[in-house]
């Protein structure tokens, strides 16, 4: 852990708190802090509905989604030993989205349909990513991933043409039941990630070096990969695919708090939660009463970041350390 890590943790927590309060205040109707407090005590008021039925679920969902996506990205980067690996750029989220849509058409009445189908899609994408030579070659991995992403996005458009727009990856209109699902799925995954964070550090060594010290490389690789996929797919199942959170956040986290995954993962969780909330809050205020979806906001922020990262950094092979 870097010496300044403590400060950065304090900073991100403070930022998170301020942004949460701001996000409760802003919207089509502006609510002052006093009004929010009043709303809490008067459940029948219209302010209460605005805060607790509209804004709080939306805030909670974006927090948990941001945290999940950032941690999923960090886990993928550890496993693929590649600083821009992440479930969205490698086509895992797109596959989950396509399968989710397929599920909606095939078995509209099935319980937990979105999640199970999205998980199926994630598994298919992982199977493709890990079956060939992509694992050993970081360039090949990204190209295969981008191709996979394009394929599933195309398939999804094919399937949804004619139907009304089904997935737009927005937090607009998040209900409490959707938020609860997200919270349960997300919290389980995030606790799991914190528990196996040391394993992510092991993968900084080569497979051969790990096998020399008796570490079951496949077990830790697949545990981390499946957990990352689960986190990303859970977000996709409820909200939709949101790009770049998993690339932007962990890479900034490494700059600020060091490269130890036991520090990177919790920090990414907090920073991801903040980034998602900030992006969504900005997206719903700048052109209010209309709004920009969280996915669009992240594409605008994340795209240039990745370009900068690769043009100025060391590239795909290993993490840039200095």
């Amino acid at each position, binding site marked *: 852990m870097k010496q300044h890590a403590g400060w950065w943790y304090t900073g991100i927590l403070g930022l998170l708190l301020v942004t949460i309060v701001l996000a409760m205040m802003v919207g089509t109707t502006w609510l002052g802090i006093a009004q929010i407090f009043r709303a809490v005590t008067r459940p029948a008021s219209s302010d209460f509905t605005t805060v607790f039925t509209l804004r709080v679920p939306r805030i909670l969902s974006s927090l948990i989604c941001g945290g999940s996506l950032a941690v999923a990205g960090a886990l993928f980067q550890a496993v693929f030993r590649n600083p821009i690996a992440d479930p969205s750029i490698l086509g895992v989220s797109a596959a989950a989205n396509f399968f989710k849509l397929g599920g909606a058409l095939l078995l509209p009445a099935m319980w937990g349909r979105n999640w199970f189908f999205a998980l199926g899609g994630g598994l298919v994408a992982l199977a493709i990513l890990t079956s060939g030579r992509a694992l050993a070659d970081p360039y090949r991995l990204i190209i295969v991933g981008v191709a996979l992403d394009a394929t599933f996005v195309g398939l999804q458009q094919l399937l949804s043409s004619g139907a009304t727009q089904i997935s737009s990856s927005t937090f607009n209109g998040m209900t409490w039941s959707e938020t609860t699902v997200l919270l349960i799925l997300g919290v389980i995954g995030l606790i799991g990630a914190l528990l196996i964070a040391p394993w992510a550090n092991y993968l900084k*060594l*080569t497979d051969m070096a790990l096998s020399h010290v008796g570490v079951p490389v496949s*077990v830790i690789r697949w545990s981390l990969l499946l957990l990352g996929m689960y986190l990303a797919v859970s977000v996709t199942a409820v909200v939709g695919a949101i790009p770049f959170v998993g690339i932007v956040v962990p890479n900034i986290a490494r700059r600020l708090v060091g*490269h130890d995954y036991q520090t990177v993962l919790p920090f990414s969780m907090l920073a991801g939660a903040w980034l998602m909330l900030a992006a969504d809050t900005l997206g719903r205020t700048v052109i209010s009463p209309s709004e920009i979806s969280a996915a669009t906001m992240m594409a605008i922020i994340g795209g240039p970041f990745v370009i900068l990262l690769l043009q100025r950094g060391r590239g795909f092979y290993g*993490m840039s*350390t200095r």
Partner: protein
Amino acid sequence: MECRHVSYHYPRQKSGLTALSGELPTGKITTIIGPNGAGKSTLLQLLARQLLPQSGEIRLADQPLTHWTTKQLAQRVAMVTQHHQLYDELMVQEVVAMGRLPYHNLWQTVPFHEVQPYLAQTGLLALADQFMQDLSGGQQQRAWLAAALAQEPAVLLLDEPTTYLDVHYQQTLMTQLQSLAAKGMTVVQVLHDINQAFQVSDWLWLLNDGRLAASGTPAQLRDPQLLERVFNTTVEVVTVPRFGPYIVQLPN
């Protein structure tokens, strides 16, 4: 450790090992020498069970190597390879702690006091909190050696351990290996420098074309005709004052 009729051939390649048999004496330094492509590195990988013999077997403590679980093997055999690579930042003490993993389950973290003796043994205590990327090649090599020693192995395998070291530290390393062997560790290394091999080893394996051309003490193998045949060059053994016999390669 012992090889019994060990054969290994890479698919579609001529090189490999053929029916190799021999003993690696316990508590001694055995050095494997031979020309490029003789199968030295392949042999080391077989001894570390990174490769499995296609026929024959390798035995350790009167058991075939395949008898041990990965973890049990890691408590007995450690390897310092020639090409070390890290994909991300790690501190010296974290690298050395990896060597203690065979004695812990995956949920445990290795406490620093377990790592400390190996850092001290390799003179790395002051560098414990440094990042590997910031060290010189020689210091990195010492960290990898410390990690291997942390495994408390009965057999220590080293592939070209002197590659990144200056003359002074080459000497230090060899003294260190000799004292490890004196305490009962079986040291097996591949060296390119024949004179270094003859100087520091208790036992030599001379590999040629995937076969064991000869094995014995340095005195037994210091035979110009044998070396000429194996290395395909003209050699002469001269005596250097205060050093002893020295093998010189002559222009053909």
